[in-house]
């Protein structure tokens, strides 16, 4: 998918993460802040990259403000942000396909 416009998903509540995706040209650029950075920073990074790969997003700037979200929440927020950026978050989501 191609990130067409800036989109946000998630909140800054505990156990959640706020994910912002913005169009960009030069591959994936990530900015991460997390309340559990020292223990989970690497894993969060890996999950976000893997999720973007499943969605076939090649170029975007992704900003994550993590408040201790579990992997399943991180995935959901990244996916929602990407689908929103293309205006396709409301229907015919490929559950079990690109979203997995």
């Amino acid at each position, binding site marked *: 998918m191609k990130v067409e416009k800036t989109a946000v*998903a998630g909140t800054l509540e505990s156990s959640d993460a706020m994910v912002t995706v913005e169009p960009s040209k030069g591959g994936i650029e990530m900015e991460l802040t997390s309340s559990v950075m020292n223990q989970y920073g690497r894993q969060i990074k890996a999950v976000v990259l893997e999720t973007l790969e499943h969605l076939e997003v090649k170029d975007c700037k992704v900003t994550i403000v993590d408040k201790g979200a579990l992997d399943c929440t991180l995935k*959901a*927020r990244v996916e*929602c942000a990407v689908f929103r950026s293309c205006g396709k*978050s*409301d229907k015919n989501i490929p*559950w*079990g396909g690109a979203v*997995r």
Partner: protein
Amino acid sequence: MIPRPRPRRFRLRRTMMFMNAQKPGLIKDAYIYGCDSIMLDLEDAVAENQKDAARFSLYHALKTIDYGNTEVIVRINGLDTPHWQEDIRVCVAGGADGIRIAKCESAQDVITVENAVLAAEKEFGVEEGRTLLMAALESPKGIINAYEICTASKRMFGVAISGGDFRRCMGTHFQRDGVDLLVARGQMLIAARAAGIQCFDTVFTDLDDDEGFEAELLQNKAMGFDGKSLINPKQIRPVHDLLAPTEKEVLWAKKVVEAYREQSAAGVGVFTVDGKMIDIAFIPGAERTLRLAKACGMYDGDLV
């Protein structure tokens, strides 16, 4: 991925606790409080502009979180909204045990949902017929059509009344003696029993009114409800305590079932237990008592 066993249409459903499907902190382990079913809500709890986010959140929760023996039901948005089709797709793809149809008013509503569920089961390679249905009756029309709704599909396991909306339609308010919902509850119960499915009462919203909650539970029990919808974990225990059989009832049920198995093996149809005449008609009730006792930790035998 946590494979969930095939949902059972008839199981113990004393407590169904509502949870906002959009709140990660809530849904990650709501099952620890011991409710029989959790009800992940895509409808009223989720703001109109977060319906999409809630589905992504729900999908991964269903796929990742081990809910154990707790049944997982999803309340989808009403058929008069643009959301329900995608709601059904995500429920089926994620493997929810059942779907609660909001604002159900007719057998056709059930059939409409069932068709969408079947289509989703085919699309996502889910065993056809796996996904169960229940209906929430929220309007006078829903109550009038209760029987046709209860019998509209083989997937239907129960109906529930939604007090807030129903009272609004009727122009009434919550009454401590329950008179405002008495007829509706009664009609729904009769329909459900006639159709052979379960019946659940509405939520009690004043969390500080312990007495009022208990009074409503006692009335629910007297009327014959199978369970209740809840909004807070603290409501679980009172329901389970109240619906639990007494020790005397458990002892009696055990004797009846044991005697029945013995006698029927010997070809006897009618017999006495403690001086009372017993026949096959008593058995389902006695077995239900034992199942309930087992769930309450009061019985650990193998009769049920």
